[in-house]
């Protein structure tokens, strides 16, 4: 199978507001895609449609060979294979870090508890935070929480990872520790869709950069071309705004 994600003519409205307009986007396994654009351009909505946190109203989305419809079975099947990292981490505050990580493998993948915890510890080591396993999320810094959130998704062995502005809520000195983990992940071959304004990250790991504005994909290119040779004026303006200081 060539595409792990295939979106054809996807449209979405919030009431009267047309938030996604005719989105066509296909992703190969192992590809890293960075999505950027001004706020309100629909980039978060786009990746949230991929695991059905938002429902699209027209068009077709196929993830890992399964089409997203209202069928709950399909939705759950896709969610098992697609991990997501949120801007505000969304860790479960009433559980320890270890419990946060082992929860879905035990209840969704039906792994024995011991095995799930073993996997959880392995993932915590991968995000370099194993010593915090028994703490509660509220006791960790933002950067640590976001790394726990990444590990939590990885525990499900997802085929695709979605990142929704993973560093936007972090203090500047914590952004790097999270980006480092994401770069490691990219090097290991994970398929990633990342909504972010971290252009350094886009330059170093992205296979493709997608620029969105007003619900449309305006430009799509390899990072080198995208940054040095933007085609549309809208892209040029955006790049000058975020890079021009």
């Amino acid at each position, binding site marked *: 199978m060539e595409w792990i994600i295939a979106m054809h003519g996807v449209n979405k409205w919030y009431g009267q507001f047309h938030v996604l307009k005719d989105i066509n986007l296909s992703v190969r396994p192992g590809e890293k895609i960075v999505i950027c654009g001004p706020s309100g351009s629909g980039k978060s909505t786009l990746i949230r449609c991929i*695991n*059905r*946190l938002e429902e699209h109203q027209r068009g077709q989305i196929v993830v890992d060979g399964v089409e997203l419809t209202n069928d709950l079975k399909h939705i*759950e099947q896709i*969610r*098992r294979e*697609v*991990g*997501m990292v*949120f801007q*505000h981490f*969304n*860790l*479960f*505050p*009433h*559980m320890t870090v270890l419990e946060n990580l082992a*929860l*879905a493998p*035990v*209840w*969704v993948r*039906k792994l024995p508890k011991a095995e799930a915890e073993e996997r959880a510890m392995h993932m915590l080591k991968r995000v370099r935070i194993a010593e915090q396993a028994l703490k*509660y*999320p*509220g*006791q960790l810094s933002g950067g640590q929480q976001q790394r726990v959130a990444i590990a*939590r*998704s990885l525990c*499900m062995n997802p085929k695709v990872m979605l990142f929704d502005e993973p560093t936007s809520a972090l203090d500047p000195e914590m952004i790097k520790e999270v980006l480092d983990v994401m770069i490691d992940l990219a090097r290991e071959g994970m398929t990633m869709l990342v909504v972010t304004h971290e252009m350094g990250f886009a330059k170093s790991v992205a296979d493709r950069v997608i620029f969105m504005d007003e619900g449309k994909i305006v430009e799509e290119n390899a990072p080198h071309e995208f940054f040095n040779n933007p085609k549309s004026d809208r892209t040029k303006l955006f790049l000058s705004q975020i890079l021009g200081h």
Partner: protein
Amino acid sequence: MAVSDTAAERAALGPPPATTGFLGWMRKNLFSTVWNTLLTILCAYLLILILPPAISWLFLDATWSEATPEQCRAANGACWAMIREKHRVILFGRYPYDEQWRPLLGMGFLITLVLVSCFRRFWRPWIGLVWAGGLVAFFLVMWGGDIPVSYRTAAVIGAVAAAAFGFTRANAGGNARSLFLWLAALFGALALVGNSILRVLDALLKELFQIEAGLGGLSAFGLGIPTGLSFVPTSLWGGLPLTLLLSIVGIIVAFPIAILLALGRRSKMPLIRMFCIGYIELIRGVPLISLLFVASFLLPLFLPRGVEINDLLRAQVAIIGFSAAYLAEVIRGGLQAIPRGQFEAADALGLSYWQKMGKIVLPQAITLVIPPIVNTFIGLFKDTSLVSIVSLADLLLATKDMAIADVNWRAFYAEGYTFAALIYFVFCFFMSQYSQYLERQFETGRRKRR
């Protein structure tokens, strides 16, 4: 400002003398402003007015030893001799005097169950079985007589076993689990309405095919296992055990129903949502007394002839239905407070609706609303006294109509009510203290949350 770091300067910056210790506390809390000082003086005056006479009535001038009403009247204080004389009837109501060790034992079962369940380390699936066993023991000792063993007993046992099995095998996969839960529901329904079904079938067969199937006889089939105790019908139960039974069973049954109602009210499915809204609004809109009336006097009019539901059960159902509606709104309040990100994170991990609610949302929502939940529980506990209007002799009715109604002791109603109030207070205070303990227990997770 310069940084002062010499020992002398640090000493000079110690707290002003009158801000610490008892004097400091008084100054800060009692006499900080003119208004505050006035209030303090007023309160002190009221205390001086009320406390000494109260203490001398309650303790100093009170008659503690055995005494006749005349001797009591001669003394100026409270007549605790009245409680000495009447405590059995207050505590156990109409229950036969010589058998009152049984409600005492039953009450012991109930209180033990509650105390055991208070410990977090016992919050395991098997506690459900302990409760089932404890309640069966309670009813055995209270009822006595012969234990009727019929299809109904079998159905109840089947329902409990299937439910227990379904819940403990929670991780075995959705299908096996829901099969067991359906089985439990089926058995439960059979136990509740099996008789009526048989009777209706019987009537139908007779009407349509002129067959005398005698299925009604089948429902009566059963044998009695003697307990060796005399039979005491529920109409004779009373006092504290009745109050405890109504409130404890009320709480443990109303709570899960309330959770379902609260979830249902937020459901995306319009039919379920409308049902839950309708139920909650309807029940909240009428006083408990009227529900008790409906359950006791109106409901029997609608039931087919021959079908009788026990008085106590009817009152219990009314209390459960009433509290569930209130609790549901309290729990919904907790649900509203959970950020959307928690739902999304659970969804994104692929958790099912019930896993998401059971593992992520409800634990957080319920710990948030522990204070109002316990508020409702305390309210429920005290509201059980309303069952007196359907002539169940709970603690308050036993005090009022049995202890105080005695002509000889009628003058000492204040003592009777004080005693009953003290009992209510002990239980309510326990609930309130326990809820504060629980709040501290659950604080761990949110220590640093903003």
